[in-house]
């Protein structure tokens, strides 16, 4: 049987309702404006080196994750490093030093299907290489602390594999004690390393983000795209920790100059404003706990409220998607039949309000037609999507 593998991958992913990069590539085009804006921003980040961030919001099943996957592909195609994580209980956004470790573990270099970048360090950060000297200079001039200067210097000069591995794991987010950085420095250079500022990870972790943003540029990539999915899970955090998370979002949305060529995108549920910002009275929390610096938090909350919405697709957009699905289904299983597109549209639109349900109904319709060569009545049951609301109200 002749079949088109890419089309089959898309149909399989759509049938399962799972986020897929292959799907993202084709179907986010249904939202040309949002996509064009983001692509423009990413291109500007690559060209100017100026970092920026954005929030997109949408209902469950409206295609937020698919959009992130599209951006993932776009960034890779444009020679950018991509890190993508979903926020969760285990990935709390109030602790950016923990987030750093997760991000590093989910960092993909262009053209790579597996995450990981340390092997590139091993090849490029060698004694007397230009990259090494640039990085050391950067650490001295641009970072808040000089720990990373000593750490990188240790890394470049040590011949001890154990030490190298320890330093590598530190760069990946498993921070080693300051004393260890100093003792390696003493062993390698026979001099004492004196930190100008005592490095505390909970206070100075940003240096690691700055370093990585600069390092990726130095390694020849055009920038670093960071994608955060399921941002609405911030709603699970307590009042104060949620505010910490807002402050941290601000670091990406309104980045400092030291963060170079980084584009950050947060995907958040559209119910967040009602469920959390209003439901949990975020403004009152700010007044109560952070009355001296409310603007830091208010700016982020405002940005969430103004986030670009992935609105439900128009009839034209939906019809365009359905035509593509029909075409992909035919290519997937090397078959063809006449499909009355008006009848098809009516059947798919009859039940369910989520894009996910409509797409699954479309695939089911074609599946049955393919297997039995006849139409079948399709019912779309209501999907239980009350998960987030339930969890928010539990707190």
């Amino acid at each position, binding site marked *: 049987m002749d079949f088109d*593998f890419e089309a*089959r991958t898309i149909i399989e992913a759509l049938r399962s309702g799972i986020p897929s990069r292959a799907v993202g590539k084709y179907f986010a085009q249904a939202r040309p404006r949002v996509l064009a804006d983001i692509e423009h921003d990413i291109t500007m980040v690559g060209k100017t080196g100026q970092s920026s961030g954005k929030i997109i919001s949408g209902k469950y099943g409206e295609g937020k994750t698919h959009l992130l996957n599209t951006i993932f592909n776009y960034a890779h195609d444009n020679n950018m490093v991509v890190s993508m994580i979903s926020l969760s209980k285990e990935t709390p956004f109030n602790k950016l030093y923990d987030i750093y470790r997760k991000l590093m573990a989910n960092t993909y270099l262009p053209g790579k299907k*597996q995450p990981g970048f340390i092997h590139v360090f091993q090849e490029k950060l060698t004694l007397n290489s230009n990259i090494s000297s640039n990085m050391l200079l950067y650490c001295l001039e641009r970072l808040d602390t000089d720990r990373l200067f000593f750490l990188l210097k240790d890394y470049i000069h040590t011949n001890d594999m154990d030490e190298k591995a320890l330093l590598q794991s530190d760069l990946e987010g498993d921070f080693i004690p300051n004393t260890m950085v100093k003792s390696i420095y003493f062993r390698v250079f026979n001099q004492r390393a004196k930190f100008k500022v005592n490095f505390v990870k909970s206070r100075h972790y940003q240096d690691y983000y700055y370093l990585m943003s600069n390092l990726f540029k130095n390694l020849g990539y055009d920038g670093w795209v960071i994608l955060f999915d399921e941002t609405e899970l911030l709603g699970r955090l307590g009042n104060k920790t949620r505010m910490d998370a807002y402050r941290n979002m601000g670091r990406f949305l309104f980045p400092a100059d030291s963060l170079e060529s980084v584009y950050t995108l947060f995907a958040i549920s559209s119910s967040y404003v009602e469920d959390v910002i209003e439901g949990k009275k975020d403004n009152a929390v700010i007044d109560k706990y952070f009355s001296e610096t409310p603007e830091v938090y208010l700016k982020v909350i405002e940005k969430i409220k103004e986030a670009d919405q992935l609105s439900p697709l128009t009839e034209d957009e939906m019809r365009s998607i359905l035509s593509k699905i029909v075409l992909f289904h035919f290519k997937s299983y090397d078959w063809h039949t006449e499909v009355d597109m008006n009848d098809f549209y009516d059947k798919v639109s009859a039940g369910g309000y989520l894009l996910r349900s409509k797409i699954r109904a479309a695939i089911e319709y074609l*599946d049955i037609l393919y297997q039995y060569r006849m139409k079948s009545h399709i019912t779309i049951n209501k*999907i239980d999507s009350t*998960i987030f609301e339930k969890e928010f109200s539990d707190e």
Partner: protein
Amino acid sequence: MDRIKDIIMVGNDIIPMQNNSSDRIVDFWNARYLHEFIPAGGSKIKFVTGLEESGKTSMLRQATAEAKEAGFLTVFFSARDIWLYDFKFVFFEILRQARLEHLIIRCSDAIIRQMGFDSANIPTGKTFIDFLASENRNDALERLEIRNLLRKRFKENPVMDNSFAIACSLLCGDCLGQPKLEPESKEHIFAWLTGQKGFRVTSLRPLGFSPVRISKFNARRMLMSLCELARISGYAGLFIAIDDVDVLVDKANYGLLHYTKMRREDTYESIRELVDDIDNFNNIMFVFGFDRSLIDDEKMGLKSYQALWMRIQNEVVSERFNKFADVIDLNRLASSMYTPEMLIELSQQLCSNVKEGKIPVPINADMAEQILTLSRLNGKSIPLLVRQATLGSLMEKQEQ
């Protein structure tokens, strides 16, 4: 090789049955997935459920046998034997059944072929390098070529984890004799890959790589790499069947693998991560088998972990059975596919296979109709009712 079509249990005997409804799904998977999508680089997770004796295990075994025949490296295990809450246990079991050494040998044979030789000509106990030396061809160029092929196959492979790739490259190099590893180093690599307790990963640093311990955080990545190793060893891919996942809600299970609430949730989380990540896998098919209780039990079952249930549940239902469905409910399948004639045939097969115990009587058309109605009314598995009717217990129950 005789093809096992299906089985049902009669006492302790396993009776092969033909023309079972799940055959049709396995045949369908065979055509659409095992011979087309997965070998071409696709990945898929399927779930098989149903009531007691609806043929779940037999379907999983049958699909595994089909996958083996289609050139897959197959793995089958019961969730009653292996913890599922931490994916590293799943990975280690898959790796054990995949026989890593065997895969490395297949890989080195492929490299030998690429260099224009046949591994069958290499005397037992000799490496490829020994063989080249005996042919006066053990020169720097040939050795460089081996290293290049190893690098391309492993280290530059974009689908493999870097540490996993280096480990395989070293093992494969050792198998070829270029470069030869110290026995202790080889043991260390295996100890790391198989997660041996008490093993220090730092002991691998002298070999030039610094892996982190295989944990629940990186085990899926290791499995992706193993899948790629299977592919470059000449397999069509990896087929993994995990049966008895309903052990998670089995209150009566006081065995070694008793799931607490925390471990149950960790298991659901781990399956969710696998579902979300499946698009990043190539050449792999997972099939999970479980009793309907895993869906129906609202307190402990899949529905108790919304994030997973949201992904598995399919809100779309049609009158006809969709053989592409990710969740195959064997009871629904049976009621949509079995005809009275098929039930009579099943009963006759059963009669010809029962050798001792109760004297079986094949069912007639009336009884077949009754069974279909009973199954619809009581939600009981059709093969179970056929067995009961054929062996008399259904009649006895009805008379009572």
